[in-house]
Each structure stands twice: as structure tokens, then as C-alpha cells.
């Protein structure tokens, strides 16, 4: 017999004692302090790596964005936690045409790449064309843009459709400017067929050819990425000469931060995990993620969820305050689909509220007794929160109103497949924007759009007022008016859309007390490491 009873018994105790062992392991683990031997000039950033590449044209993952933002400059950028208005970077100024189709950028003079060669309009045109034409994950943000130069210091970006948010797109790390000559020498292409011809990723993963405040010193995607200060940086030099991005799971990050004394940052401690951190640490967070339920509006998928009265009843049944509490610090009850970090969000005073009596009345009105619905959700932990716990809370809330939800945790891929097939009667998912503009919500979630159709929400099944409100947002070119139109759209969405926003929560930067500028940014790069200094 190949499995001996003795071996079975030896293995038997392992899981049973798991809880106890891991509790005690907490006090024994953790490196403590600055891992780089207290070098005063090194900043350590701990994060659970989501890292595939450091090629600006292909970077799409959180850790890669943090590094690429420090290695490559963009035309515009955001400062600190503010993602409302882009500020000059490589472009010292820009002008937008009234129809929001043409944007003219005046480049700063005297900017050089890290190797000392000058940065010109050609490099900008090359980099943006390459981003668009290699058709990597971030290309979607620039697919409607075309770029040209009028002289060595002027770049014109045109949009096929009116888009007042082009400046925001040009602050994204993926639009970082590469040294075109070096890039070409190493296989980079910017032509229309670049998707097949470009072979520069391998080179760009291990070499940086930008003009940013840091250069890449080493790239080990499983363990660490080391950045060193760019000696030829054109702007104000960063205070830390070295930045080490360390791959670390979130529990270890928490233990490390509990002992860290100086020059250390963690990016993934959020929500409930923030409880119990020492008072001396500073945190910076912005609510940039919303969590919502989607009900299928197609009677062919579910006669229950497509019933507008059921939709209303479920909205009234949910304890939004209680759900926000599950997310811990920095969370808020759901208001609208646009997270509080972004322009056009609904004020906290408009957060949804619970009314169980109303829910019961609505169900009775609809003649629904003990409605039962399968409730799909991905069995994952997202930003420190186990989605299963939230789903169970929703189930408990719904039960009090007389609605039975059958919890159906799914592996992430299964969940996504079923959602995409449009067969999920009721689902639960987080949503983060891939750049800090809420327009994409309208492009995806308005009636008849791609995401909406996955919930069976066609234009015919939608309130015409919602369709009109969505069109109004897209047509409004003034940014302030656009934000107001976005709010109006969300108010209507909260009445009869298939989406029930449960809560929003924040990502958080936790930093030691001696640091300044460790601000969380919802612009994608999480923290601007070059802006971090000492008090």
C-alpha cells in the first residue's frame, strides 16, 4: 500500500492546527525595520507584485505602473492624490480646441533622457504611436487618438470624437515617452503593423530609456525591482537615491510595517487590515473602487431579477451602512457608480439607505412570495476584503426582507465566463477604473452597451430618461458640466438600472512617520515614489 496509515496520521494534524500555528507565527515572522540595512538613502516599497512588464506600451498592472511612472515622463501628470486636473510635465502648457478634438502640447525645453540625449517631439510621436499600434492592453485608452508634430517642440493630438478627457489619458504611465532611437535599435516599432513587428518588450523589461526621475537598476519580477536616481534628471531630483519595490504578501506587509522605523511604504494594507497598526504610521487613501450587484434584466434568464419591483425591493433590503463597515476603514456606503475619487461622483449624503418594510411591501405588490435567486460571486479577496463575506451579508439582509439568495461562489474565471455569457441572474463584482475618468462607465454600462448587455439590459428594457441622461454626459464638453451630468445619470441609474452599488472602499498607502509625499493616487501608479521625501 503506498499510503501508510502512519503517514496519513502525520499529515492529519497539519490543517487542524493551522489556525493556531499561524497565529503564533505572526509574532515570530516579519523582517522588521528597513530591509536594506538602514541605508538612509533607500526607500523601500512593499507590495504584493502584480507585474508582467515594465514596457510602457504594454504595462497594465499595478506594480508595473508604479515603476513605469517613476522611469518615464508623460506629457502631463497628476500631483499627490488629486486626479481632478492634470498638471504640466513634459508639456509645459497645452491648448484644447473648443470642439474637444484637437489638443496642442508645447514641450518643455532642455529635457534630456537619462543617457543625456535630448527629448524631442519625435520621441513623443514615436512613443504614442507605438502605444496605439502595438495594441497591448493599455492601447484601448488611445485607440481614437492620432498624434503628429508641428515643430521640434510642439505635438498635436487629435481625437476622432469629441473627448475633453484627452489630457487625462496623456497623464497615464503607458503614454510615457521613450528614447525613440534607442527603442528602434532594440526592436521597437511604431507603424500600423507594430503589433506584429515590435520586439522591444524584453529589452524594456530590463532597461529603462525614459527621462523620468529614476532609472531601472534591476528587474526581478518574482522578488524585487530596484530603481536608482537619474543623474541627468531635468526636474527637481528625488530625495531617495534608491527605491526598492519588494514583493511581499499582505499579511507580511502588515507585520513589517508594525516594526518599520523609517523610509518604508506598503501599498496593499487596506480595509480591515488597517486595524491594529501602530498610531505612528501615516496612511493615505482614496475611495477609488465601487462594489455593486448586477441583476439580469432579461426575463429569459430570470423572471425574478428582471422584475422591476424585485429590483426595487432588493435595493431597499440591503444594509449599506453595515456593508461599508465590513470593508473597514476608508469605506463608505454606496452612492453611485462613480467612486468618490473621481469627478462626477455623488456626494456621500446621497448614499442609499435601508428600508426593510418598503422592500416587503414591494415584493407583496409584485406578488412575489419567497423569491429565490442564484447569487454568483468570485471567490476572491479584493483589496483586503473577502467578497464571500460581503455576499453572505447581502444574503442575510435580503433574507430579512423575504428574499432567498443562494450563494454561489465561483473561481474568478468561471465567474467572468458566466457574466460575459449574460447568464448570471444576480452577481457581485468590484469595479476600478483603468484611468481616472468615469466616462468609460457610460460607454460600458449605459443601456445597450457591452457590459449592460451582459445583464440583458437593452435600450428597449431601459427607462428612456436613462438613455437620454447618458447621451447628455457624452455630449457635454465642459468638464464641470459633464461632472454634473454624470451625477444626474447616476441618480437615474440608482432608480431602475440593473446595478445596485453596495459600497466604495479605498486603496491605502501606509508609510512610516518620517516620510512626506506618500500620497495614494487613483491615477494608476498608486504612489509617486519620486515625490516621497523625508521630513
Amino acid at each position, binding site marked *: 500500500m503506498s499510503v501508510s496509515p502512519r503517514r496519513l496520521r502525520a499529515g*492529519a494534524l497539519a490543517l487542524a492546527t493551522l489556525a493556531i500555528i499561524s497565529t503564533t507565527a505572526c509574532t515570530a515572522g516579519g523582517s522588521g525595520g528597513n530591509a536594506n540595512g538602514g541605508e538612509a538613502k533607500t526607500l523601500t516599497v512593499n507590495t504584493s507584485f502584480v507585474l508582467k512588464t515594465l514596457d510602457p506600451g504594454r504595462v497594465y498592472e499595478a506594480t508595473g505602473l508604479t515603476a513605469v511612472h517613476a522611469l518615464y515622463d508623460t506629457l502631463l501628470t497628476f500631483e499627490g492624490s488629486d486626479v481632478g486636473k492634470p498638471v504640466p510635465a513634459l508639456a509645459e502648457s497645452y491648448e484644447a480646441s473648443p470642439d474637444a478634438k484637437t489638443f496642442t502640447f508645447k514641450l518643455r525645453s532642455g529635457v534630456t533622457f537619462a543617457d543625456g540625449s535630448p527629448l524631442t517631439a519625435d520621441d513623443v510621436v514615436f512613443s504614442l504611436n507605438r502605444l496605439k499600434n502595438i495594441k497591448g492592453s493599455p492601447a484601448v485608452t488611445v485607440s481614437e487618438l492620432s498624434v503628429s508634430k508641428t515643430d521640434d517642440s510642439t505635438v498635436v493630438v487629435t481625437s476622432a470624437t469629441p473627448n475633453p478627457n484627452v489630457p487625462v489619458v496623456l497623464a497615464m504611465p503607458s503614454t510615457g515617452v521613450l528614447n525613440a532611437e534607442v527603442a528602434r535599435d532594440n526592436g521597437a516599432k511604431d507603424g500600423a503593423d507594430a503589433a506584429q513587428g515590435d520586439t522591444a518588450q524584453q529589452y524594456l523589461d530590463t532597461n529603462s530609456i525614459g527621462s523620468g526621475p529614476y532609472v531601472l537598476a534591476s528587474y526581478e519580477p518574482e522578488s524585487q525591482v530596484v530603481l536608482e536616481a537619474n543623474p541627468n534628471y531635468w526636474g527637481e531630483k528625488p530625495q531617495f537615491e534608491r527605491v526598492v519595490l519588494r514583493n511581499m504578501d499582505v499579511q507580511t506587509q502588515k507585520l513589517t510595517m508594525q516594526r518599520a522605523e523609517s523610509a518604508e511604504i506598503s501599498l496593499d494594507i487596506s480595509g480591515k487590515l488597517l486595524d491594529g497598526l501602530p498610531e505612528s504610521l501615516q496612511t493615505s487613501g482614496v475611495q477609488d473602487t465601487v462594489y455593486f450587484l448586477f441583476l439580469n434584466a432579461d426575463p429569459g434568464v430570470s423572471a425574478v431579477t428582471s422584475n422591476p419591483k424585485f429590483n426595487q425591493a432588493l435595493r431597499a433590503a440591503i444594509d449599506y451602512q453595515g456593508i461599508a463597515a465590513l470593508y473597514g476603514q476608508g469605506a463608505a456606503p454606496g452612492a453611485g457608480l462613480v467612486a468618490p475619487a473621481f469627478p462626477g461622483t455623488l456626494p456621500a449624503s446621497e448614499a442609499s439607505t435601508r428600508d426593510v418594510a418598503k422592500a416587503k411591501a414591494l415584493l407583496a405588490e409584485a406578488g412575489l412570495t419567497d423569491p429565490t435567486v442564484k447569487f454568483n460571486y468570485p471567490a476572491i479577496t479584493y483589496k483586503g476584503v473577502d467578497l464571500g463575506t460581503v455576499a453572505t451579508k447581502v444574503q442575510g439582509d435580503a433574507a430579512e426582507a423575504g428574499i432567498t439568495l443562494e450563494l454561489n461562489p465561483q473561481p474568478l474565471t468561471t465567474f467572468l465566463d458566466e457574466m460575459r455569457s449574460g447568464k448570471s441572474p444576480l452577481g457581485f463584482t468590484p469595479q476600478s477604473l483603468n484611468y481616472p475618468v468615469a466616462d468609460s462607465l457610460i460607454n460600458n454600462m449605459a443601456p445597450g452597451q457591452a457590459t449592460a448587455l451582459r445583464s440583458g439590459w437593452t435600450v428597449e428594457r431601459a427607462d428612456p430618461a436613462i438613455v437620454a441622461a447618458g447621451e447628455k454626459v457624452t455630449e457635454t464638453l465642459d468638464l464641470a458640466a459633464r461632472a454634473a451630468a454624470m451625477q444626474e445619470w447616476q441618480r437615474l441609474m440608482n432608480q431602475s438600472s440593473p446595478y445596485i452599488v453596495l459600497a466604495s472602499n479605498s486603496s491605502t498607502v501606509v508609510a512610516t512617520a518620517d516620510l512626506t509625499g506618500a500620497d495614494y493616487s487613483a491615477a494608476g501608479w498608486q504612489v509617486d515614489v519620486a515625490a516621497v521625501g523625508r521630513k
Partner: protein
Amino acid sequence: MTMIAPDPVAPDPKVDRALTRRRWLGRLRGGSAGRPVWRQPIAVVALAILGGWLLVAILAPLVAPYDPLAQSADTYAAPSATHWFGTDSLGRDIFSRVVHGARLSIPLALAIVSLALLVGGLLGLVAGYLGRFADEALMRLTDLVFAFPQIILAMAVTAAFGPNTRNAVLALVIVSWPVYARVIRSAVLSMRGDDYLNAARLLGVGPVRALRRDVLPNSIGPAIVLATLELGNAVLLLAALSFLGLGPRPPAAEWGSMVALGSQDLSMWWVSVFPGLAILTVVMAFNVLGDALRDRLDPRYAKGR
């Protein structure tokens, strides 16, 4: 000396059967040597623990002070007089959930082991008795299952069929039947040439009857011991599956998933420690009991000999 003549008295199958059927039961009572199981202090403790858990499982609604699924605003309450084991992230009473968890874990473990014993036992019996192709095919099939670590194979099976209680049980039966098949097969093989079987065959006893009346009673003993040991393992594997989100669906009070919930924030130690202790005590008790049984029934393992 060579044996030419048959035994002067052919054994009466009835008498022999009665004897052999009693063989392992007799050892249990201390018939061969050593103390019977219930005179070994550690086995008695194990039995008491299991008895206790069985009672808790049967009387769960009376023992548990709260509804195990009822959520409350009193989240993450530390253990106190109102909540003996504290509450979890949704304000559910952990003591009540641990108590109700016994209703899931213990019956499911029994179901897994009995199904595996049934399937493995039958296949092992047939393979051992028929030999040749049937034996060869079965042994290669068990090799196939043994080639994977149990938990990995169980995870794969549950993930393929979809995570729920039925599929978790099914997966664990699939990974655990070969052990019984091998044990029973080897027991059958060792008695294949035995005189009483030959005698039965000469008397015209068919294979089904022979298997049922003669072979099974003589080979089931070691499998029963193994099953007792495996009960602990079944509790553990089930907990491991639901720890990974592949077991009974939430909000069911399953010990493994309760440990998983608590492991998200270990500063609230009570959320995972109490269900962890429940798993620990049940698994330990089944293992100790299995060991004691084996000591009785298999002299090779007996202590001090």
C-alpha cells in the same frame, strides 16, 4: 513428507465460517493478547471525545444558544459570557457555528468513508477473487489515483464538477476508495488457496456466495481499522476543501471555511482558533481510536511485542 491424501476430515464450511467471522471481533475483545480497546486509557478518552461530538451533533439546536446563520451588528466580539467563542465578521455566534459544524463534518466524514469502503471494498473483493485481468486493471486504476496527492486530486475534481457539498464528498470518495480496494484485495489474495474456500467450491458454492459468506467476513477486519483512521482524514480533507472554498457553500457553518474566514485577520484569533480546535479534537480522536483498533487487530503493530 509429502501430502498425498486429503485431510481426513474435510472442514465443515459452516463451522469454519463461524470461526473466521469471529476472528477479528474476538481480537477486539482481547481474545488473542493484550488489553481490549476499552481498557486502553487513551482510546477511552478518544471514544469519549467522539461520543461527545456525536451528542453535540445530534442535539445541536438544543446546545447552540443562537441560530448559526443569524447575522448581527455585534461583529468581531471577543469571547465573553454572551458569546462563548466570540462572533465573526458578520456578527454570527461562533460557538453556535462550531456546534452546528459538527452536524456537517461528522456525518459527511462518515458518508465519505462508508462510500469509499463500499466502492473500494467491492472492487478489491472482485479483483482479488477473480485475479488476472480484473486484478491487473484495478491495480493500475489505483496506481493512477495514488499518483496524485490526495488533496490536489480532490481539488481538481471539485473544481471540475463545481464547488458544493455533494461534489466535495464525491471528490473525496474518488481519492480515498483505492486504499480499501488494495487492503481487501491483499486479504483476499492471501486466503485464495485456503482449504475452506476450496472445500466450499467443491461443495458447489458459487463465487457470489463464496465472496459474501466466506471471503468478505475474513477480509473486512483490516479495512474497518483503516476506515476508522480514515475518518479523521476525511474530516480533515473536507475541512481543507472548504478552507479553499471548495466545500459546502456559504453560509453553511463548516469548520474549514470558518478557519479560512478567521485567517483573513489573525488579530481576531477566536474566529479561526475555535473551529480549528474542533477539527483538531475530532481528527485526533479518530486517529487514536484507529491506532488502538489496529493494535488489537493486527499483532504486527501491537506495542511491546
